[in-house]
């Protein structure tokens, strides 16, 4: 019954999780929130992570009721993500692995999301829509690779929403996307053009509804295309943007029309967290993967399909 400790900090969330045999024993997390109108920069984000990571580690062990001797493997995010935050987390993972004399495992962040999504929802072989501030991909598993069927050709959908929130100085607490969603719910008018002026006043909620309807419809279309190509009867949404209820509704409509089933997780697991790295690490550990210290460097670009998924048939 191996227990795996997972460290995640590739963007503005820092999390440490413990997973043992399909059970999440602990998953504390902190978010670095910047003032409205600003985004998070690598150096400041790394500083935030460095300040809290050792406390989070203790919290995770305490919550799981485990000591270092009970942990069998240290997993961490090798990439993709922002450089300085990734390094800050990786050095702790390496130090802990050496101090406790445990094997180290570098995990692909996207695969962490996928494996946690599969664990929590029980979906067997879904087409995956991975949408977050840093990534937008449609992924299907085939012959030991998570194949990227479609992706953004420029910025991630969450990045688009975050930047939009920044322009309007919408609060980043708890996340800009969450606040956009709440405001968009109150929007009553869907407009074709994002320009609404009422006399001397302006209205922004219509713009936000427009943003959501349009970008989410785009995502539904490419997911549907991948499902048609693969003959898939399951769809799984992972990544922070997956928390958005409107996106889930639109995906559900599409799935029902196809006679397929939609899976999604709640904010504990669709937002970046340590347990998802631990879960992917658990699968990899069981399958015999190891990351020697000398090869444990982080990488800001780490494609989902670079990893050989030996733990699935």
């Amino acid at each position, binding site marked *: 019954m191996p227990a795996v400790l997972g460290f995640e900090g590739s963007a503005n969330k820092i999390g440490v999780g413990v997973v043992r045999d399909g059970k999440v024993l602990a998953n504390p997390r902190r978010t670095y929130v910047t003032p409205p109108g600003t985004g998070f920069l690598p*150096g400041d984000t*790394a*500083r935030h992570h*460095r300040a809290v*990571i*050792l406390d989070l580690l203790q919290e995770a062990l305490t919550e799981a009721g485990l000591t*270092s001797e009970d942990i069998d493997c240290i997993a961490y995010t090798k990439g993709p993500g922002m*450089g*300085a935050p990734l*390094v*800050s987390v*990786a*050095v*702790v993972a*390496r*130090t*802990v692995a*050496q*101090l*406790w*004399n445990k094997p180290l495992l570098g995990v692909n962040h996207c695969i962490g999301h996928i494996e946690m999504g599969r664990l929590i929802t029980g979906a067997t072989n879904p087409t995956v829509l991975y949408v977050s501030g840093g990534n937008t991909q449609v992924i299907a598993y085939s012959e030991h690779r998570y194949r990227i069927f479609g992706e953004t050709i420029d910025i991630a959908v969450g990045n688009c929403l975050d930047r939009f929130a920044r322009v309007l100085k919408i609060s980043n607490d708890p996340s800009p996307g969450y606040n956009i969603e709440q405001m968009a719910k109150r929007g009553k008018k869907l407009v074709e053009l994002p320009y609404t002026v009422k006399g001397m006043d302006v209205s922004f909620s219509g713009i936000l509804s427009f943003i959501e309807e349009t970008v989410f419809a785009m995502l539904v279309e490419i997911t549907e295309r991948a499902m048609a190509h693969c003959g898939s009867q399951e769809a799984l949404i992972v990544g922070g943007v997956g928390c958005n209820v409107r996106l889930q509704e639109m995906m559900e409509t599409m799935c029902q029309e196809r006679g397929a089933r939609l899976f999604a997780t709640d904010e504990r697991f669709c937002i970046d967290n340590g347990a998802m790295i631990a879960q992917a690490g658990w699968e990899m550990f069981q399958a015999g993967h190891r990351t020697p*210290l*000398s*090869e*444990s*460097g*982080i990488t800001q670009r780490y494609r989902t399909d670079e990893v050989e998924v030996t733990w699935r048939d």
Partner: protein
Amino acid sequence: MQASGGGAGGAEDRDDQQSSRIPACQSGSGSAEGEAVRRAPQGRGGPGRGRAVMEAAVARPQGEQAPGGVGSAGDVAPLAVRPRRGEVVLTLRVPFQSPLEADMARRSLLPDAQRHQGLIRKEFAVNGSDLLVRWTADDLAFIRLSMNPFLDQLSLVIRNIRSLGLPPRQSRS
């Protein structure tokens, strides 16, 4: 932590085995203490002054008993690349409680050290209980850009080792 003058990183004189390492410490009164950066000497076969700087650096480790001892046979491999003419070299010496801890820190920090190697060269070594880090670049500004985040990561590793501690059987020696 102590920054020591590593400029005579010309201690890569091939005739002297011992001097092929970063000088562990330049103690004693005078020049090196408090001096963080020195320009590398002007080439090997250069005129008198350049050679004298290099020789001084070569001679000093033999003459001194640096605290913690100058390296023994069990050290990590020496640093082999000598700075080119005009390059700036900065050496950092970080004392740990034991050689084990120093090497642990090295292995935690080294894998990401190669990320921006175009403009600067960063090298690690362990000498006794000291972690040695050496930056070589054309311009001090590049070294400063690299060193600031490095010190943050190093500080985290030190806090990490302190907070978790070594298990009893890996005790300090």
